[in-house]
């Protein structure tokens, strides 16, 4: 076999490469590793400054999780979050899928500007709107209910998802829709029966992304909701699991972990598509 680049050089390059990746992985994931350990440590172990924090000086315990699940409304918050998430995703799809297609295919040149315009609504973030909203929500009688969130959340999921979907729909060739129309479908029928099934992966990506945005949201949730039974996970955990000055760290960390990791796994599955739709829209 013909001699390739000197092995030593390749090894150092590979080593450097691995080192860089390792540094970033540690930076990103260490807090979660720490969450994992803390969750299963006995509180006495945690709060004993003489102990090595990296070891289980007392045997690992499920107590923290037990407190979390049975003595707080955590499960309730998870359910609330799921309900809000599902409803918001549904509303987002209903609004953003047709909008995205319209921007991609049906609106000619002013569609381009409208697309950017929709995107620019992000320049009016929740941190500007939450104050007037607090009044509006209480006027509507929705204060202290998670339905207020269902009403308001699509305001930040719809713009971005429309833009993202615009990118996905642009990738569907004109020909396919034209063929369907010639075969007898109306343009709307072609959209429903041909374009949507073909864009399923893009739509799924939008679903995941919207759900992540819902999970993340804090400002509106903490402004509109005050009773524990209506909290979503993102606000319930910080406000409730801190009783006075005492932090139930073990349970807190467990709460954080459970709410983060499963979603991250699903997100990871779709990040390629997300990026693909993103770049089609951005590099235009």
């Amino acid at each position: 076999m013909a001699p390739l680049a000197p092995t030593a050089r390749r090894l150092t390059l590979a080593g450097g490469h691995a080192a860089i990746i390792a540094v970033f992985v540690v930076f990103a994931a260490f807090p979660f590793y720490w969450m994992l350990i803390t969750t299963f440590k006995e509180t006495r172990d945690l709060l004993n400054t003489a102990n090595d924090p990296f070891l289980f000086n007392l045997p690992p315990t499920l107590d923290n999780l037990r407190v979390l699940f049975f003595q707080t409304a955590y499960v309730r918050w998870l359910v609330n979050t799921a309900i809000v998430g599902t409803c918001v995703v549904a509303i987002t799809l209903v609004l953003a899928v047709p909008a995205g297609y319209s921007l991609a295919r049906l609106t000619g040149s002013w569609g381009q500007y409208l697309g950017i315009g929709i995107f620019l609504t992000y320049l009016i973030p929740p941190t500007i709107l939450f104050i007037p909203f607090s009044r509006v929500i209480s006027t509507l009688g929705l204060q202290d209910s998670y339905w207020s969130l269902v009403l308001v959340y699509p305001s930040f999921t719809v713009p971005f998802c429309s833009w993202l979907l615009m990118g996905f729909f642009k990738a569907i060739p004109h020909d396919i829709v034209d063929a369907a129309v010639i075969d007898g479908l109306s343009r709307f029928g072609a959209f429903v029966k041909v374009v949507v099934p073909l864009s399923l992966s893009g739509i799924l990506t939008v679903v995941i992304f919207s759900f992540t945005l819902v999970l993340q949201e804090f400002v509106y949730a903490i402004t509109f909701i005050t009773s524990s039974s209506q909290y979503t996970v993102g606000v319930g955990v910080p406000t409730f699991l801190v009783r006075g000055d005492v932090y139930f760290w073990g349970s807190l960390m467990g709460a954080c972990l459970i709410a983060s990791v499963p979603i991250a796994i699903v997100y990871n599955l779709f990040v390629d598509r997300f990026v693909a739709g993103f770049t089609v829209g951005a590099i235009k």
Partner: protein
Amino acid sequence: MNATIDGDAVEPQDGGRRIHFLDDRLWLGRLMLAPAIVYIVALVGFPFVLAIIYSLSNVTVGSEGFHFVGLANFRQLVNSPQFWVAVKNTIFFTVVSQIAVIVLANILAMALLKDFPGKWLVRLLILLPWVAPISLGSIAWLWMLDPIYSIFNWVLRAVGWLGPNGRYIWLGQPDLAMASIIVVDVWRLLPLATVIILAGLSSIPKDLLEAAAIDGAGVVRRTFEIAMPLLLPIMLVAVLFGVVFTVTDLIVVFVLTRGGPFNSTQVLASWAYFTGIDSGDLATGAAISLFLFPVLVAIAVVLLRIAKRTELT
């Protein structure tokens, strides 16, 4: 399609059926777009106008009445030192964290270009900070930066950097607190920026880099003279996102320091919350948060203009 310019359905020559609106591109387009536009106008445009109105009034959480006070709230803010602290912090946190994010994201994205065993897992771990709800991630950092139990203090003591009883009060001293907030901001935004830049890197035609290699360019020249300039538009998009997220961020400050110690880490967003919702002064709160808007618009305009100028297609 026999649609006229304003979209009216037109009888075809042979007197057959009218063209249904479901076929007409223009009307279908408008119809499909309308619900989203209506919703956005109602839930973004309307409250925005309301915010402006509130800021010009003396509305509070309890009050039923409503008095116009003109620009009095704004004048009051501009004269308060606390306001300028918040403005300075907002700008400082944003600029420093964004610079760090862009540099680090570029490095990480280049490292992630090649395939290697375990890449899926690595990507998952790197995405975690972005996907986890920010409030929960901040709580984890709160635990790690705890004055007594901080894991960082423990490690520093273990390697001898700190004395046996030494510790840093990460969130209690103003400069350390600011640094901590910046670190958490970077930690949270790095995944998104990396993913975006990675997408940009993958979209550079392979040809160009190969041609540069044949032309005699080494890795450094290829990266800085060919790849970077082509990446500029997408890096600007990443920066735009990052800036919007950081400037409007309320959660990290809220969870980590509540604006302390002594309001030294207050940013516009968090201060607006404490003033408007916690203390009930809606009008002043609205005024504070409105300062965010021109800042964001200015940044967006600048970035989009730069992006247009470097347009390569």
